[in-house]
């Protein structure tokens, strides 16, 4: 049979029409076109583009820029939520300190996250402008966009935009007649989730295996090639131009009474929702509001649990749907805001199978550097596989509890294993009965034969 079905080519898209977006309320997305085509240099310039660079580089001093960022309290949108202004203020500069680097973390690989792709594929100049401003504030001499290798379309759009910006004089020597010089190179990776960890990213940028580095020294003290280095996420950097043009107070006000945090956030929803997608909303928007925008769950399914911001965040329950999704509120519930793109799990979906899938991911993506992560995560996979098949034995669940605790914060070299532990710990806490259903043997009886471990 010859079908006329279109090939399902994937295109990144925002589900808010242009009429609903304005410069005063949607700093990240108001310029985006309804047809999804790239906002090129001319169009970007006609929509306030590079105005922040012209003004800041010719009028303000770096200290004032950092002060504004601190006041606006733009918290790291890669998921950690650390204040970008504070990070910048801790970056060494001045005296005989060599000029360092701005590195954009565009290694978007957190399962459930598809926001930075949109910004890079449709509005590359906003990121470039944000990086120039960050460079000016931190006296950086050069920038790198560390882009994951699979983002081929982003690479194509960014390369073209970098060339456009260089041609127009927004990159290179004497930017906007200010005497400040700065340029950016695109660096594409070759896979591995761990590259998103900021010190692993620096090792990868330098052409090494992406093992994280010990902190301190922090990148702001000694980063790429030992120079002071700022590593910021794509969305974080994309907030900078509007903060500079409209000010910290305006930015704070964007979230109204919803949250202590200011600004907007690219929120999203995926899983079995009717209308999976991405929206720019005030920080502090609730899970319920996002699910409404996503037109609810498919086929009248019921919500069982949700991850607020990627695989490394803890499971929340339907009762948490009215919480404002900001860093501190979600943190108090034993989870993290993470990237702010929620993944829904419906009543008919098995938590044990999902946990097995999540831990397979973390085990595979462990860099192998430290023991709890390298050995502990594959062990959780073995136990979860056994429980999933109904081949678990008494004590397996307690062992999972212990592994989750032993991979927790402070016990491993970086945040990878704690990121794997958080969904596991919360799943065991909220859905213990599902795991218990997989226990069918007395202690020491089920595992007489090695458990098949799969490709972990």
């Amino acid at each position, binding site marked *: 049979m010859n079908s006329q079905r279109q090939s399902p080519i994937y295109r990144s898209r925002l589900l808010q029409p242009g009429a609903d977006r304005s410069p005063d309320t949607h700093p990240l997305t108001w310029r985006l076109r309804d047809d999804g085509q790239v906002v090129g240099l001319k169009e970007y310039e006609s929509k306030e583009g590079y105005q922040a660079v012209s003004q800041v580089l010719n009028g303000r001093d770096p200290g004032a820029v950092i002060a504004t960022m601190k006041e606006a309290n733009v918290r790291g949108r890669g998921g950690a939520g650390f204040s970008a202004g504070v990070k910048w203020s801790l970056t060494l500069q001045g005296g005989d300190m060599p000029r360092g680097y701005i590195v954009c973390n565009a290694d978007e690989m957190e399962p459930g996250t*598809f926001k930075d792709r949109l910004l890079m594929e449709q509005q590359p100049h906003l990121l470039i402008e944000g990086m120039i401003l960050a460079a000016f504030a931190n006296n950086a001499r050069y920038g790198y966009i560390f882009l994951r290798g699979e983002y081929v379309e982003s690479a194509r759009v960014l390369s073209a935009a970098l060339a456009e910006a260089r041609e127009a004089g927004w990159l290179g020597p004497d930017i906007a007649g200010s005497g400040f010089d700065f340029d950016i190179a695109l660096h594409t*990776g070759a896979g591995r*989730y761990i590259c998103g960890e900021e010190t692993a990213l620096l090792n990868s940028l330098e052409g090494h295996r992406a093992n994280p580095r010990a902190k301190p020294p922090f990148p702001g003290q000694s980063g790429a090639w030992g120079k002071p280095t700022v590593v910021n996420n794509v969305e974080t950097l994309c907030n900078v131009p509007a903060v500079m043009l409209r000010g910290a107070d305006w930015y704070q006000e964007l979230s109204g009474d919803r949250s202590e945090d200011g600004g907007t956030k690219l929120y999203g929803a995926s899983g079995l929702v009717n209308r999976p997608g991405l929206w720019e909303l005030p920080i502090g928007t609730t899970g319920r509001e996002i699910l409404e925008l996503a037109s609810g769950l498919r086929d009248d399914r019921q919500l069982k649990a949700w991850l607020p911001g990627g695989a490394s965040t803890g499971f929340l329950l339907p009762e948490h749907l009215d919480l404002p999704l900001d860093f501190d509120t979600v943190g108090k519930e034993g989870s993290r805001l993470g990237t702010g793109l929620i993944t829904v799990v419906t009543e008919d979906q098995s938590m044990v199978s999902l946990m097995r899938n999540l831990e397979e991911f973390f085990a595979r993506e462990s860099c192998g550097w430290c023991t709890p992560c390298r050995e502990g995560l594959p062990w959780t996979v073995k136990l979860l596989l056994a429980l999933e098949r109904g081949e678990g034995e008494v004590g397996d669940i307690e062992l999972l509890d212990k592994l989750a605790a032993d991979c927790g914060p402070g016990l491993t070299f970086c945040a990878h294993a704690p990121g794997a532990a958080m969904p596991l710990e919360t799943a065991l806490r909220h859905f213990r009965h599902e795991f218990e259903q997989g226990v069918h043997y007395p202690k020491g009886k089920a595992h007489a034969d090695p458990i098949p471990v799969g490709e972990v």
Partner: protein
Amino acid sequence: MMETTPTPQTITTDGFRLHPEDEAAMRAEAGHYEQPQAACIEALKIVQRRHGWVPDDAIPAIARVLGVGPASVEGVATFYSLIFRQPVGRHVILVCDSSSCFLTGFEQLREALSERLGIGFGETTADGRFTLLPVCCLGACDGGPALMIDDDVYGPVGAEDLADLLEGYS
């Protein structure tokens, strides 16, 4: 019984000749960084673009261009999942196996692909047309289940889409 000490293998580049254009591209890439080592991943990708994969003998050749040790290049080449160390098919299918796709039909998609192609993950079809691999979240979760064929991302992909989809890659 006496164990015999194996003869140390000499690393040779005899079986591999770096294309002059590729060598120039590697040197140009190295110019973007304080240290040429930083161009290592890109150098491996340059070789892979020409040959489809990175043969062992390419390692010392890259090391020589970048002025670093072959062990260092080998360490990098074996770390990153998109550097292929054995021959792959003309087209590589990367199937996203992360959580959002898992919840929207990854396993059915993988089964349908395996059945259609007669191969599992890590394998290449007998005609050398396709290699099937899993991949970390493709950042296409609003289009899950998603997959990537060469440079193209598709999603959501149902089993019924596969015939037409694969047709486009000879």
